């Protein structure tokens, strides 16, 4: 497997390159996309891609965790996409939705790529008007991001594969950045406690079920 070189790690261009690479290929993740582009999950993800045998040996537990993560990423990506489409956001909220949304889309493609044939399809969503105003958007984004962080945190110790754990951690902290970002936008304390708590899968699914965002 080729090591990533410093030249490939280009912060300014990488996100755009990576996103373009993923979008344009239409095939989801390509090796070039993984190694060259904006995928700083980097060494972890590149190794997963380079070892298809490892994917074949993935445990059932890890498959379930990846599918769970994919569901949440689908949800977040769709939420941000709809919020942007509805046109009620501007300034810092719009920037947040655009960037966080782009990240979630990349997370979706990454997880789908890892899962391969085990990837679940995107559910249909009804965001019940929460994307319709700046205030509702903000409140919902805070809830979704906070829950997403807690979900990854709850699953991390249950992941069997070290490579997948590394990848999950690279996503988990980005979701935490999103959380703090939207909290700060809302004028709230971005990091009010020293330790963030995990949620179990059951707890997360209960939270999501209460929103009734997922149809069917």
């Amino acid at each position, binding site marked *: 497997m080729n090591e990533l070189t410093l030249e490939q790690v280009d912060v300014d261009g990488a996100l755009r390159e990576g996103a373009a690479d993923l979008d344009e290929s239409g095939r989801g993740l390509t090796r070039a996309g993984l190694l060259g582009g904006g995928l700083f999950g980097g060494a972890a993800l590149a190794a997963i891609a380079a070892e298809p045998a490892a994917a074949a040996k993935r445990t059932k537990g890890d498959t379930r965790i990846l599918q769970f993560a994919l569901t949440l990423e689908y949800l977040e990506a769709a939420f941000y996409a709809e919020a942007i489409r509805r046109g009620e956001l501007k300034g810092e909220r719009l920037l947040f939705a655009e960037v966080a949304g782009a990240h979630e889309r990349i997370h979706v493609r990454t997880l789908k790529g890892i899962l391969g044939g085990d990837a679940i399809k995107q559910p249909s969503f009804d965001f019940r008007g929460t994307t319709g105003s700046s205030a509702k958007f903000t409140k919902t984004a805070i809830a979704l991001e906070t829950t997403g962080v807690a979900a990854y945190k709850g699953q991390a110790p249950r992941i069997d594969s070290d490579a997948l754990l590394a990848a999950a951690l690279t996503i988990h902290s980005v979701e935490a*950045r999103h959380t703090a970002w939207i909290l700060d936008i809302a004028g709230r304390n971005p990091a009010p406690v020293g330790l963030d708590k995990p949620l179990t899968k059951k707890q997360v699914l209960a939270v999501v079920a209460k929103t009734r965002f997922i149809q069917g």
Partner: protein
Amino acid sequence: MRPVRVLPAPNVAVKGTMSEPITLELVDADAVMDSNGRSELSRADLLRRAAVTGGALIGGGVLLTGVPKAFAQGSGTDLEILNFLLLNETLEAAFYAEAAKSGALKGKALAFARQVAKNEAVHRDTVKAAVGSNARAIPPFDFKGIPNDRDKFLVTALALEDGDVAANNGAGPLLSSKALLAAAGSIVSVEARQAAWIRRIVFGNTPKQANRQPAPRPFDPGITLAQAKAALRSTGFVPQGEV
């Protein structure tokens, strides 16, 4: 020739060797221009310089020298990782506490320093409890006046917080204990929140460039324990004793 712009600075180059004095250079690679509008210091130059001096680029999302393959290295026992985290969290708790009471900060920066001082103290105590009687002694710190200088404090905090995320993400997969992984997980998301928060303070509310935004990348890569130690060493905050 226009003077070098010090802030806002997406990249903080931290370098030093045994014989050179340790300096914290605030370098905005994109903004350093000569009078013809050509960049005097391209990003490639910056990376090469950091590599040559053996220093480390922290912050702005640029990886430290070398390529992290942290999850595969298997280096660093749980105890080695814990003792590094103990040193790091103890240092940060002290650093932010000093900044909060220095009188140099006000408004959002002061609120940040106060909250983060509390959070890092919790982290320190959590790691201390985990390491127990196996704790290595903490050497004295020298923060070189940085907590008393608002601009230098802000940029240093940015580098520290982004660095913490990278160090924790690298360490996580190396931990053999699930309990420790859970504890590290509860800590790293707070570091990430703090990183996003300080980025908002330093770069404002609507930065156009990804590397100035609260979440600069879709993934936060981990760094190795050796890289995390090198980064801490190169700040010069621990002048004696081992990092």
